[in-house]
């Protein structure tokens, strides 16, 4: 771990201003991912701005009939919230499918969105990785890529976004609220929050340097059956091979997003019209442009099968 300086912010605007002012500065919330990456010197911030004192740990009812989730609401608190459990079950199910109880107690809503890939070449600083060291090459593309992306990847990077929560937020059409230095705020639709690797795999999302997430807003409830099915090699405490977040209505229509397959939660709205024709019809459209490796090509039939299981569960 490189030496760094540390301070505790007193307001979101101030936090944003400090980080915006220093190229090597980063926000620190739960630290469940950042601190590990700092120990391995994958992240080497020179200054940490701890946002834990900011008053961002509440879940409020929003004027549009939805919920406004503070950036510092813990994963545990969010998953356990009665309103979330009642109206946004896919979100609760996604959160509890991730990490462990201890990590969920510490991890925050905003931090969860910002967790970095688990690609093993990103984690080993002896190895090439364009995400960690732009221009060094991608170790994974011709290496061990079983866990990695099958769609939306580039020649530069085949990393996956590893989280579960964001996959549920994607089917719920959440928006991410931020503040920048000077107090300017914006709302970023979740679809536009994470980005594809392209030629800049070092950039996971569309936040600017110094832009602080203050809340995640859920639109008003849409009803339907909420299911999150996460397929992995062991029963718990593992990243998804493929996951499906789905909200399916009585008439068979619905929304579907996939995790574990791309650099971001993967949802193709235009394909959802095919949902009533079954899983194959939808997934053949969703993965039409997939470019898997030999190691991970199984994810495409697995995605089809996982959605089929989800559909079967809604009928059960």
């Amino acid at each position, binding site marked *: 771990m*490189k030496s760094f300086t540390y301070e505790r912010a007193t307001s979101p605007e101030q936090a944003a201003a400090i980080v915006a002012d220093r190229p090597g500065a980063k926000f620190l919330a739960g630290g469940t991912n950042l601190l590990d990456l700092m120990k391995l010197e994958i992240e080497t911030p020179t200054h940490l701005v701890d946002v834990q004192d900011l008053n961002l740990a509440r879940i409020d009812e929003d004027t549009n009939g939805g919920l406004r989730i503070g950036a510092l609401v813990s994963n545990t608190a969010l998953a356990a919230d009665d309103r979330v459990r009642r109206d946004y079950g896919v979100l609760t199910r996604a959160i509890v499918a991730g990490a462990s109880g201890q990590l969920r107690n510490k991890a925050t809503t905003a931090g969860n969105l910002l967790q970095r890939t688990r690609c093993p070449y990103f984690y080993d600083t002896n190895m090439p990785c364009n995400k960690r060291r732009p221009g060094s090459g991608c170790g994974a593309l011709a290496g061990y890529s079983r866990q990695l992306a099958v769609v939306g990847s580039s020649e530069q990077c085949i990393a996956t976004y590893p989280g579960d929560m964001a996959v549920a937020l994607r089917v719920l059409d959440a928006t991410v609220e931020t503040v920048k230095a000077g107090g300017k705020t914006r709302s970023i639709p979740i679809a536009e929050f994470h980005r594809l690797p392209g030629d800049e795999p070092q950039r996971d999302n569309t936040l600017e340097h110094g832009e602080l997430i203050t809340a995640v807003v859920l639109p008003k409830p849409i009803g339907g059956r909420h299911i999150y099915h996460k397929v992995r090699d062991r029963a718990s405490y593992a990243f998804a091979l493929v996951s499906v977040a789905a909200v399916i209505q009585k008439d068979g229509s619905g929304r579907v997003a996939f995790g574990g397959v791309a650099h971001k939660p993967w949802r193709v709205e235009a394909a959802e019209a095919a949902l009533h024709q079954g899983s194959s019809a939808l997934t053949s459209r969703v993965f039409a442009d997939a470019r898997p490796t030999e190691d991970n090509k199984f994810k495409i039939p697995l995605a089809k099968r996982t959605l089929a299981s989800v559909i079967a569960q809604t009928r059960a």
Partner: protein
Amino acid sequence: MEFNAPAGTNLFDRAKIVGHSTPRIDGPLKTTGTAPYAYERHDVAPDQAYGYIVGSAIAKGRIVSMDVADARAAPGVIAVVAAPDYAPVGQGQGNIAPLFGGGEIAHYHQAIACVVAETFEQARAASSLIRTRYDRAPGMFDLAEAAPGASLAKGRGGKPDLKTLGNFEAAFAAAPVKLDAKYTTPDESHAMMEPHATIAAWKGDQLTLWTSNQMIDWAKSSMAEILGIKPENVRVDSPFIGGGFGGKLFIRSDAVMAALAAKATGRPVKIALQRPLVANNTTHRHATIQRLRIGAERDGRITAIAHENWSGNIGGEKGEDGTLQTPKLYAGANRLTANYVAALDLPEGNAMRAPGEAAGHLALEVAMDELAERLGMDPIELRIRNEPETVPGNPGKKFSQRNLVRCLRQGADLFGWSHRRSKPGQVRDGRWLVGMGVAAGYRGGPVQKSGARVHMGNDGQITVETDMTDIGTGSYTIIAQTAAETMGVSLDRVTVKLGDSRFPASAGSGGQWGAASSTAGAYAACVSLRRAIGAKLGFDADTATFAEGKIHLSNRTIALSDAGPMTAEDSITFGEFKRDYDVGTYAAHFCEVAVEAYTGECRVRRMLAVCDAGRILNPLSARSQVIGGMVMAAGAALMEELAVDKRFGFFVNHDLAGYEVPVHADIPHQEVVFLDTQDPVSSPLKAKGVGELGICGPGAAVANALYNATGVRVRNYPITLDKYLEGLPEPEAI
């Protein structure tokens, strides 16, 4: 004491303490966090500095230059110990590549430097300032590619490891029912909770290592060989070990670097291997390729069996011999086993829990399942049909005891085997396909010379000292039980001290020999103490009864404490008569799995082991050993794999997020049954170990259950869903 004939009736046949479930006496220390593990021994030497090991960034080649100036100048840094400044250290037992020194790189993450600083964080931070330039050399990292050119391993007496009996080829050709199948098992990591860790301190030329090691006497002599010093100048202390599984049988780089760094700085130095180093810096279980050919008559009698095994290691040294159980398990007059080892440039392969057999059962016991299906026989009946009378691979040799058929029959009853459908893919539970599998298990029951010293205080308190280790197995408790039984005192009157090389050398913890050997050694020392007491007080200790803290003679009773303070030391050695016998442990393993019909997710539902392993010294801790082995076997079957990058030559998934082992949710229900047997050939206690029996077979039972559930046979471990997904029913058809 020499154990030179099968044990007759003795005090353990009327035992009040040995053989009874006894909570581990070290349990409260473990559960309250007060058992001091190596890295936590802050009080053993003052002024400890922290070492941090740097591993090689390449798999093969040499160091061109190493610039340590910035690291030396970094805050808190006391010294940087750099490989180019040292000649390669000597070779200790169980090591192939030098653990440190010189410019040659033999494998990824081989130790090339150690930064010593006032704090761990300073040492770690400075380590990244070392700039090393390498000259990368090509290496061989692909077992499948190297296997065809592999040589036969060196077997007993250095002879090529190829054994034949009868005429396999002719008998196989003539057999009406045949199986010829290839299986592969991957490299696996011990993945113990406590990484390798050592504190080293020098006093003059005397070196003390507070470390985490399974074999204290080996560690002492190896350390002497590695550093070129006298064994008597090395002390090793390892009272608590957070898991070893064979990964801590030998001295590794933590101990070597701590010793060299302590020498360089003149201060005690502590080092724990950071988790990412454990996979590539230390040892692992080698991957195997195994070919099984079995020929049988239509009634199931095996007429021909061949088991060939390929693995690889640095320099083509010792490999993973998957054939070990095959000459022991099933009858058949015409046999062949062969064990080949290829030269690979991956990190060092070495012993991991049931080396050889754990991987071997994953092949042989699936082959038996496949053969049963071809024969249209129940797989339990096939095994019973081929139950041998003497050792199949060495028919002149007797089994000391063998109750495998009882294990299978009793297990079948307990598990509800009769409900299994022989045709696969027939049982549904909602979205889940359900199947059952069975496998037999064999693991040798070896013993080794083992010593102990027993002291009786004025108060009649008994203290046992031996360098035996407790790697989480229950050694403290079974040795205390043995001493309490032999001296006729209650368990709370016995203190057991382990893991210090100042104590008499023991068998150590390895090869499933620890329990039987170390309790026999403790017994031998207690018998010596009894005789010494008898000599002092004038009675024949061998006919006296020691019970309830008293010595009962025909004409009087003496309080044990009246004998005053006394000490005796002895060891158990094992006589030639054992060579006439194969001493083994046996199990029947059962498993039920459910496989999600759409996604292929496989979940173990329940596991059962019925074990025949002689007298069970402590059923509670023995059960823990067996269920631990079953968990590890389920991991081997379903998820564990060190993934090889064949370009860069290293194990990619080198942390506990990437190397998945089973979690609680994977193992919902396990049962263990021990047959009530004693093996008089094994030891005076008629006991055998179980620490490795539990991993021999359950993985194959999982694999066979998965086949029974799905109808898809996967022969490449681990059996992850990508390998059978396409064989499951199409979603539209479900």
